[in-house]
């Protein structure tokens, strides 16, 4: 039973002279205790997808079609105030940049109390908040509550953000590039924290990242996005050991961690992502793909096999 599911979701941005199609016909689902990774390069639509999942699309963006179900409820068709009530309580989010994610003039304790107060002022007190901070590895949590965001390091702030997201015991935790803004040691610590969390948190986790290491360390399943579409979805082991979509293969071969030493350069994928406001017919990756032939300009079939789906003319699931 999936906690959060996205069915044929399309999101576009209004731009001068047209629409930029950031997310196209995406279908995904994640169940309790499961960790889903959404992977892709900058501009592939993964952050827009994450924003849509929590119902906070930026100005100018709109859902063109599709359904987002949270515990079976059709999120997009709920009244605005019902949607708001679900945020923080049923679905919580950790953002990319912990430096700017908190209000600079309010203490950590005041902000966390306000977040909880939006749903249930009576249920949580200062001691509960401190206990949650301790759980995510904040030393001296009582003191941390009285501090301002700029007095904490980036890693500490991201821990606070994770604690804040967990406070209401949500069904789904969405982390949008949770380690990208951190330096390497902090990044490792946050990855460890999220991995430890898997044992104590019984909800679903969605991690959006371009970092292959984060996916490999944390996720059960991964969806690879390209130009707004999920081009391949599979279990993490299967995807890393046997990538089927040409884009996934190209992406994995560019990971600095797997590049053979001594080749003298880092491999890249030639060309650039297509213009999302004027997409080519057929496969969006065709212009950069080594396997392209005449069929690639026609509508692309999705192949499905045990636990895997691939959107490609030339590769099978």
């Amino acid at each position, binding site marked *: 039973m999936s906690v959060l599911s996205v069915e044929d979701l399309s999101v576009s941005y209004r731009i001068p002279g047209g629409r930029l199609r950031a997310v196209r016909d995406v279908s995904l689902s994640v169940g309790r205790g499961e960790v889903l990774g959404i992977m892709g390069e900058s501009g592939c639509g993964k952050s827009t997808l994450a924003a849509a999942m*929590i119902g*906070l699309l930026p100005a100018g963006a709109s859902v063109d079609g599709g359904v987002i179900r949270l515990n079976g409820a059709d999120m997009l068709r709920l009244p605005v105030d019902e949607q*708001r*009530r*679900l*945020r*923080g*309580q049923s679905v*919580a*989010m950790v*953002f990319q*940049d912990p430096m*700017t*994610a*908190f*209000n*600079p*003039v*309010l203490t950590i304790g005041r*902000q966390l109390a*306000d*977040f909880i107060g*939006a*749903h249930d002022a009576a249920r949580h007190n200062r001691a509960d908040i401190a206990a949650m901070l301790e759980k995510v590895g904040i030393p001296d949590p009582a003191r941390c509550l009285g501090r*301002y965001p*700029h*007095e904490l390091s980036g890693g500490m702030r991201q821990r606070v*953000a994770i604690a*804040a997201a967990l406070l209401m015991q949500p069904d789904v935790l969405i982390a949008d590039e949770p380690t990208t803004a951190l330096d390497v040691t902090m990044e490792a610590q946050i990855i460890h924290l999220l991995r430890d969390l898997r044992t104590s948190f019984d909800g679903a986790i969605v991690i959006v990242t371009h970092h292959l290491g984060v996916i490999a360390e944390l996720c059960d399943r991964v969806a690879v996005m390209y130009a707004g579409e999920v081009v391949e979805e599979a279990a993490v082991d299967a995807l890393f050991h046997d990538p089927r979509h040409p884009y996934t293969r190209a992406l994995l071969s560019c990971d600095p961690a797997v590049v053979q030493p001594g080749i003298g350069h880092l491999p890249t994928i030639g060309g650039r992502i297509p213009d999302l406001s004027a997409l080519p017919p057929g496969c969006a990756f065709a212009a950069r793909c080594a396997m392209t032939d005449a069929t690639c300009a026609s509508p692309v079939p999705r192949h499905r096999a045990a636990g895997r789906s691939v959107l490609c003319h030339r590769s099978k699931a």
Partner: protein
Amino acid sequence: MLAYAIRRLGLSVLILIVVMTAMYGMVFLVPGDPASLALGPRATPELKEALRERMGLDQPILTQILYFFGNVLQGDLGIDVWSKRPVLEQILEVFPNTLILGVVALGWALVMGILLGCAAVVWRDSWADRLLGVLSVSVISVPSFVVAIYALIVFAVWLNWLPAIGAGEAGDLGSQIRALILPAFAVGIGWVGYLARLIRASMLEVMEAPHIRTARAFGMRERDIVFRHALRVAIVPTISILAVGFGSILSSAVFVESVFSRPGIGTLITGAVEKRNYPVVMGTVLFMTGFYLLVVTAADLLIARLDPRVRDVLRG
């Protein structure tokens, strides 16, 4: 923080010295002998000389300035040439009137400015936002003494709801409040528009900040986000403007107090200028400059109080 406050205070004293020296220089550059003007055309040379001596005008200018500063340090702002009363006594007598006018005018302007500024943010780009924009610019453009005259004609003369002149009966709070309404309205109305625009711009910027998105992601109500989280950030740059604004409010009080014949610093200084009552002019300017510097310093300390990042920078 304390070191900062002391540094600011030292700077204020320096500014005061510069202002007073400039004032003294001005008195000597303006044509006409204060003593002859004070005594009129039929005064004998002996009388004029006696008055000049009493006013200290026969001394070299540097001596006069040093003498003046020496007196100021002892809390003596000089003696009124006409009434022979100490200048400080006269200032303290009318200053509360001006202070109350300034505080009430800026106070209602701030409350209205915050409400209208936030309303413009909540209903951004709607017809209400545009209407508020046009109204704000209109009220900013009208000088306060023009508002004062119209308010006087409509509410005091035609409708007879509020008193036209004075500051109310001493000891009668009700009449004092009624006498305050029209002047405070006239002085504050332009500031309502100005502050509404300022807070709207500041709020729009803050509402785009990532921490507002965080607050939304945690399901906070939009109203709470605007008033509890965004306003706390947006108000900080407004405070230094408010302090500067207090200075300009005190100067517009000069006109408005004249229109309403309301005793205050404005009426005191205009009367003194007309009669070349230099000790009163100088004392009043010194007093108001000092008061203004105090307000600006207080505003900076308040900003440090409201923004922990500024506080830490000051702490060093």
